[in-house]
């Protein structure tokens, strides 16, 4: 990559930051340069974020309709999947899937809820409150 080919696409995914990249001058010597975004990369990032947001919205609708516990929605909101949530909480995936059922969720002890709260970075009181009331 030549120094004048370093992309400057002002990608919103960079949040106003710049990345450092290595690029060559006309005689092929390496220099460093800053890049404030690349459309190709931003497209890929945004697609991944959009996918998670769509999953979160679907899970939120299920939670509101009483068909699922809040855990599924929160899992996507905090950019986890079942495997990631299992690793972060130390709970088996089948247990997590079971906890996605609203009736099971309402009976969960605070001890289990606090493991979810820690994984999401939330106050456990919030998860306890969701046991009594809908979203």
């Amino acid at each position, binding site marked *: *990559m030549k120094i004048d080919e370093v992309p400057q696409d002002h990608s*919103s*995914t*960079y*949040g*106003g*930051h*710049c*990345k*450092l*990249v*290595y*690029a*060559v001058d006309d005689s*092929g*010597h*390496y220099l*460093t340069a*800053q890049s404030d975004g*690349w*459309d*190709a*990369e931003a*497209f*890929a*990032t*945004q*697609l*991944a*974020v959009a*996918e998670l947001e769509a999953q979160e919205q679907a899970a939120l609708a299920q939670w509101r309709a009483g068909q699922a516990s809040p855990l599924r929605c929160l899992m996507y909101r*905090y*950019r*986890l*999947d079942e*495997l*990631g949530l299992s*690793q*972060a*909480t*130390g709970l088996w995936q089948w247990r997590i899937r079971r906890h996605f059922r609203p009736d099971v969720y309402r009976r969960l002890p605070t001890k289990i809820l606090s493991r979810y709260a820690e*994984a999401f*970075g939330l106050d456990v009181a919030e998860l306890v409150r969701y046991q009594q009331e809908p979203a």
Partner: protein
Amino acid sequence: MTDFQHRQSAHCESGVMANMLTHAGLSMSEPMAFGLGSGLAFAYLPIVKLAGLPLIAYRMPPRHIIKTLSKRLGARLTTATYGSPERGRQALDAALDAGRLTGMQTSVFWLPYIPEQMRFHFNAHNLLAYGRDGDDYLLSDPVLEEAVRCPAESLQKARFAKGALAPKGLLYWVDDVPLEHDWETLVRKSILSTTRIIDSAPLPWIGIRGIQHLAAQVRKLDPANVKYNRLYLTHIVRMQEEIGTGGAGFRFMYASFLEEAGALIGAEALREASQKLTLIGDDWRQFALACVRWCRSKEDRGGFLEVAAILERIALAERALLKDLSLWSKGKR
């Protein structure tokens, strides 16, 4: 510690090592740290899943550069992980109070200064702490332009995030590093090690065979399965470009190392190799563009033969280059 100089880097681990060694008195650029630590690689790991998709890495696993580089340079590093978060916090505070420039491994997700859309659960990020001010830590995150402040609570969460590659509060600092080195031997040794990793690994997912494996996977995609293909192709691009400077970025950084090392020891062959690797890096960027182009086009998407062909070309070019480098590092050229 007022004399510490933050320097932005392309990759966290090589940046942390370069800044830490420079601070310890052994002036070192990031590409040199990356090259001498034999950081370049390729791996396609179908067993390790990220959001249900395979892990694709363009460099050696986390901590490889730290371990390899300090061993080659004969540097003494203190490293420690902590079972109890509280003990980990105390150890960090004690190290900072003793004036140590302290490296650590963290999750990206819990660092508040990282742009929102970049915050995914990646647990093998590296950064340096150079001081404390009230409830904030003064951090030098090598991928950022400037040094930053981070609230103690967030840093604690980032250091003790759970999951794959959990950092377990890992701290490390340089106790002592020799300042005199036989650079030629070091350069040859580190390049030879990289050629062995990439071109002679016994597994079909590592190195050149890994690139060919990825090409085969791309060629096999069913063009009708648009949703999956879009996720899969952009996943490759994200693994390549976003998560730690990526495929092309690492190739350019290694090329920069070859140039700098060649000038240091007066080896013209390395300068030629650097130029070839620059072209390979450009091909990696073309590959990323081709993936995104497929995802963006509304109709007439076509198959994946062309996209896979770029990868196959890259594989052959990297193999040829590594053969040359391998001969050079053994002194046969």
